[in-house]
């Protein structure tokens, strides 16, 4: 199945989803008739540690929990808000009040009816308190009024344009108030036996093997879901995961559940298809972080020289196996649809980049020694998988060209995180950023000086302090007008690339591999979306 076919099918899904027509789709000559029933097996890697998606934002949880929990909103192919548990909404002209009208006749899996009180509780008592993104996304949310059971009114201190793109089941799941009331959300018994309103009900979790989800027969969308059962399987070894797909034992693998090296071979398999759709809200980027507390790296020239020395296309071709494109700056080009992205910045992909880099190193006052070396630095290997070691090995070779002797240091996750985000005892780190739906959600925290928080992971650990940038990002957070926001972000990108507190390497393109028997599986949010319409052919 080609990508275009996917888009067409999925657009149709979307149309159906947004007007909530019952299951029978418009017949198309070449598409088989949807069939009910069956068990779908998806691969999730690694196995989630918890299903408390309202409190932990690890990327391997939502493929399971978005089947169970729902959000107020979902998003269309242009990532514009679309109805989910909220039927409609209106934003006051001053941007400080948002009124949501809720779907009627929705019940939780425990039989409780869904009302505006659940919305209020989910946001004020759960999301604001324990959701790791709560302090950012919900910073302006002061209270929620519930004038009637089907209306929830959000009161904001200031306009928060990013809020409306952060209300999916993945970001802000709606939980059942009566289940949570009077308990610690983190210790709630339903943390790992979730109760939501979604198309599938949690059935069992056999640790180390699988999570089983059963069809919610009382789902509020008539006739859905199509499948009887979803099984999320956990296989620790990458090669074995690929083999399970090839053997037809698993039907669906999204994100990094399949090793990039295997994707081409899997695409050639007659029983498997692939798509790159559904990752619009991810905006993932690989990067280097420089510890600017180190005297060598405090010099802008050195940081820029490192950025020049790296051939991003090489990383795309040989580390990410072509499933990526070179990055130009801190914002992914995914943000060109919103106009935030610009490539009018200092470009490191020029033909004479090695010469420039060597010149910069000379200017910074680091001449080559007798052994050809200018300085020695450590590179901390990201502990989340094999590809990071490959990237590190390449960077070691690339920086050798400009006289920097790099030693790779490979530690377990805990030590690595502590070294880079608590002890600040590193030279260069190779992290991985997910911007999310809006730069406010996943970009600001890496660069603004207020995000220099010792002990907090994946924030500004570089000691980068630039008041001008802080001001721009602050303004962009509050600016409701998209065009003016875009101008602010363009300016911010220019400054960041010039200052190079990090070096941005590749924009990662995820690929979903699926069995061709599985249909209607990919929506605008990809694996972070309920598979209520997915069905299995015989």
């Amino acid at each position, binding site marked *: 199945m080609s990508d275009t076919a996917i888009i067409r099918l999925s657009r149709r899904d979307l149309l159906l989803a947004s007007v909530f027509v019952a299951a029978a789709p418009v017949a198309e000559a070449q598409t088989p008739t949807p069939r009910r029933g069956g068990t779908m097996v998806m691969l999730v890697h690694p196995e989630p540690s918890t299903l408390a998606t309202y409190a932990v934002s690890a990327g391997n949880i939502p493929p399971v929990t978005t089947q169970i929990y729902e959000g107020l909103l979902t998003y269309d192919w242009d990532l514009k808000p679309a109805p989910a548990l909220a039927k409609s909404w209106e934003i006051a002209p001053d941007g400080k009040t948002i009124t949501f009208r809720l779907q009627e006749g929705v019940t939780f899996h425990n039989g409780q009816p869904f009302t505006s009180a659940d919305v209020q509780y989910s946001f004020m008592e759960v999301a604001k308190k324990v959701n790791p993104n709560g302090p950012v996304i919900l910073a302006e949310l002061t209270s929620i009024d519930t004038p009637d059971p089907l209306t929830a009114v959000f009161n904001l201190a200031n306009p928060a344009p990013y809020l409306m793109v952060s209300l999916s089941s993945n970001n802000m799941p709606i939980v059942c108030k009566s289940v949570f009331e009077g308990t610690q959300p983190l210790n709630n018994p339903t943390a790992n036996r979730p109760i939501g309103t979604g198309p599938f009900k949690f059935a069992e979790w056999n640790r180390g093997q699988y999570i089983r989800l059963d069809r919610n027969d009382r789902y509020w969308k008539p006739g859905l879901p199509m499948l009887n059962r979803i099984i999320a399987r956990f296989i620790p070894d990458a090669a074995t995961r690929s083999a399970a797909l090839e053997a037809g034992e698993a039907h669906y693998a999204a994100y990094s559940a399949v090793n990039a*090296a295997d994707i081409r*071979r899997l695409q050639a398999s007659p029983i498997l298809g692939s798509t790159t759709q559904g990752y619009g809200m991810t905006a993932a980027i690989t990067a280097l972080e420089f510890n600017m507390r180190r005297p060598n790296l405090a010099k802008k020239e050195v940081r820029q020289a490192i950025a020049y020395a790296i051939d991003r296309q090489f990383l795309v*071709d*040989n580390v990410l196996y072509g499933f990526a494109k070179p990055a130009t700056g801190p914002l992914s080009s995914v943000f060109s649809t919103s106009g935030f992205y610009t490539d009018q910045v200092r470009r490191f992909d020029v033909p004479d980049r090695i010469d420039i880099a060597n010149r910069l190193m000379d200017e910074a006052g680091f001449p080559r020694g007798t052994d050809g070396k200018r300085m020695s630095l450590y590179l901390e290997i990201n502990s989340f998988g*094999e590809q990071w070691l490959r990237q590190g090995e*390449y960077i*070691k*070779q690339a920086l050798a060209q400009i006289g920097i002797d790099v030693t*790779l240091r490979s530690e377990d996750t805990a030590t690595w995180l502590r070294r880079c985000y608590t002890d600040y005892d590193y030279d260069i780190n190779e992290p991985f950023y997910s911007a999310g739906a809006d730069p406010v959600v996943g970009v600001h925290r890496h660069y603004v000086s207020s995000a220099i928080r010792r002990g907090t992971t994946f924030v500004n650990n570089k000691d980068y302090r630039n008041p001008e940038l802080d001001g721009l990002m602050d303004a962009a957070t509050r600016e409701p007008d998209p065009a003016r926001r875009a101008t602010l972000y363009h300016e911010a990108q220019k400054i960041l690339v010039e200052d190079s507190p990090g070096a941005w390497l590749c924009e990662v393109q995820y690929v979903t591999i699926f069995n061709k028997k599985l249909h209607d599986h990919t929506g605008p949010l990809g694996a972070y979306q309920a598979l209520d319409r997915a069905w299995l052919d015989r």
Partner: protein
Amino acid sequence: MRAGLRRFARNRMALAGAFVIFCVVLLTVTAPFLFPQGAFSLAGQPLQPPSLRFPLGTDALGRDVAAGVAEGARTSLLIGISAALSAVLFGAAVGGVAGYYRGPIDLLLMRMTEFFQTIPAFLLAMLLVVILSPSLLSVIIAIAAVSWPGIARLVRGEFVALGGREFILASAGLGASGPRIIFRHLLPNCLSSIIAVGSLLVATAILLETGLAFLGLGDPNIMSWGLQISAGRVSLRSAWWVCTFPGIAILLTVLSINLIGDGLNEALNPRLRER
């Protein structure tokens, strides 16, 4: 001993093993001249199948697999031999003391040995490498730390068995000191077993190193066969050569060491001699 070597030389399998190891050592010595750029350099297009330019192909980053195998030989031998040697020295010391003095010391040391044998060796090695952070030295320490109990038990067993023999009793009766008995009489008498088992430990150590590197617990700055396989594993089925050749190198080396060990065992073990 000389007669033992002659017997060893008559064992064709052991000789073949010795020949392979000789080649591996030769490769180690000549690697800097054969591949002056080093094993990490990006030598050509990635994932090229074996050709004249790259007889063993290139890996996912375009590194010469042959250069990796040559440099990895040094790492594997270095780790294997140092770890085995440390394990033998420590194990023999523990086993020797326990077997000679017996009594409470024996009990204590053997409890300790048992203790270290009880903890699943591979898990312990993994843990030690993580605690010490992956490097050449930490891998050697970890492997040695899990390899010594076997030697300790062997040496103790031999000492206990020899302890009752007439010539030991005779020397003790003649007033020979403890260390003298240990070094002049006991140790030489079980040297052959130690050599045979110790040589096999080198093979086990190389395998352990591969396993650790497979789980990403090797020194990332030093090329080794384990690192090559762990890197090539992802492209195992589209580019078989990347981890096939280091795999064969491991297999041949470990096999040869085992053949040598067997040869030594047969040649030096007096109880097998008559047959």
